[in-house]
Structures are given as C-alpha cells and as structure tokens.
C-alpha cells in the first residue's frame, strides 16, 4: 500500500512542481514569480515530509524548517525591494 501512496504522491507533486515552474517562467510580474517560488519551496517541503514518512526517519526535519525559513526571508526581502523601488519612483 505504501508503494501505491508513494507513486501517487510522486506523480501529484511532480505535476504541482511543473505548474509552479510554469508560473515562475510566465509570471507577468516579479511578485507572481516570488509567490510561485514560495509554492515550489512548499512542494519541496512536502516531498521531504513524504520521504520521511514513507521511510520512517527524521533526517530531513531540520532541512524542512530551514527551507521554510529561507522562503520567509526571501519573499519578505523581495517584497520590501519591490515596495521601495515603487515609492522611489513616485517621490521623484
């Protein structure tokens, strides 16, 4: 049964990652790309979780927390950058 679950989740997560990558490539604006990159990171985290659950180990848990931290710092930084640039344009 675990083999079936692994196959199904692998297919589903691959499709989801492909969709997020398409949005990163096409995304009309920078913020859309940041959002899609965040989703891609969440999909990686889900894959790590499923690997841990299927093989019954906890090796990736710290990596999971680190990934969510990187996603947080990255999207906040880019959001600040976008806001600052637009404000500068309006003031000048």
């Amino acid at each position, binding site marked *: *049964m675990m083999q079936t679950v692994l196959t199904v989740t692998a297919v589903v997560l691959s499709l989801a990652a492909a969709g997020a990558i398409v949005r990163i490539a096409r995304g009309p604006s920078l913020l859309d790309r940041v959002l899609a990159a965040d989703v891609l990171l969440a999909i990686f985290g*889900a894959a790590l979780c499923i690997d841990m659950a299927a093989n019954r180990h906890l090796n990736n848990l710290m990596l999971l927390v680190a990934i969510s931290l990187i996603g947080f710092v990255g999207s906040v930084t880019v959001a600040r950058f976008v806001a600052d640039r637009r404000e500068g344009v309006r003031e000048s």
Partner: protein
Amino acid sequence: MNPDTVIDAVSGVFMVTGALMSLAAAIGLLRFPDLMSRMHAATKPQVLGLFLLLAALGLQMRTWSVWPVLLVAWLFQLLTVPVSAHMVGRAGYRTKHLHPELLSSDELEAIVQRAAQKAARQAATHGADDDEAGR
C-alpha cells in the same frame, strides 16, 4: 483489522491529501487572474498541506516523542507564512498588481485616498509659505 493497518491507511490518506493541496496550489497559480487570488491558492500547501504531511509523519513514526518537534515545525510555518503573505500583499497593492473590479470590497482604498489628500494639502500650504518667503 489490526491497528497497524488502520494507522497506515490514515497516514496514507493524509499523505495523498497533502500532496493534492500542492497540486491545488499549482492549478490556482496557473488559472487565477491576479496576484491576490493567486496568493489565496498558494497558502494551501503551506499551512494545511504541511499539517497533513507532518501528521502522516507522526503517525508513521509510531512514537509520541516526535509530535512536539513536528508541532514546533508547523507552528514556525504558521508564524512566518502570514508575515510574508502580508508583505507580498502590501507590495502588490502598492504597485497596483490587482484588478480592482475583481475585489468585492477594498477597505484600504479610503485610507489611501485620505492620506493622499492630506499629503496634497500639506504640499499646498508649504508651497504658499515658500511664496510668502519669496516676496
């Protein structure tokens, strides 16, 4: 039907559902028209999806000692995701990455208008002061 099989089945269902959350987010990213609605879709794997997968992991490990660690990992995600979503949403509003006709209500609009009027009034009075000093 022994408890081991039941736990395996429940965690399998959790894993498939958590993976489907990621797929839902990807479909939402591809199909929704603007940044705000895409942000709505993007939250699903980050909160509910991660919760389901961590629960599946806790069920598979068959020990209570891992649950606090998993809870901390999930709470950390729960603390950081709203902050980054707030920052992205604010930047999106400021840089006009939204379709105003798709919003059912825009509470920020009135505040932005008032602030803009106040700034315009201040600029007008400062301009008058400059004129008097010139004369």
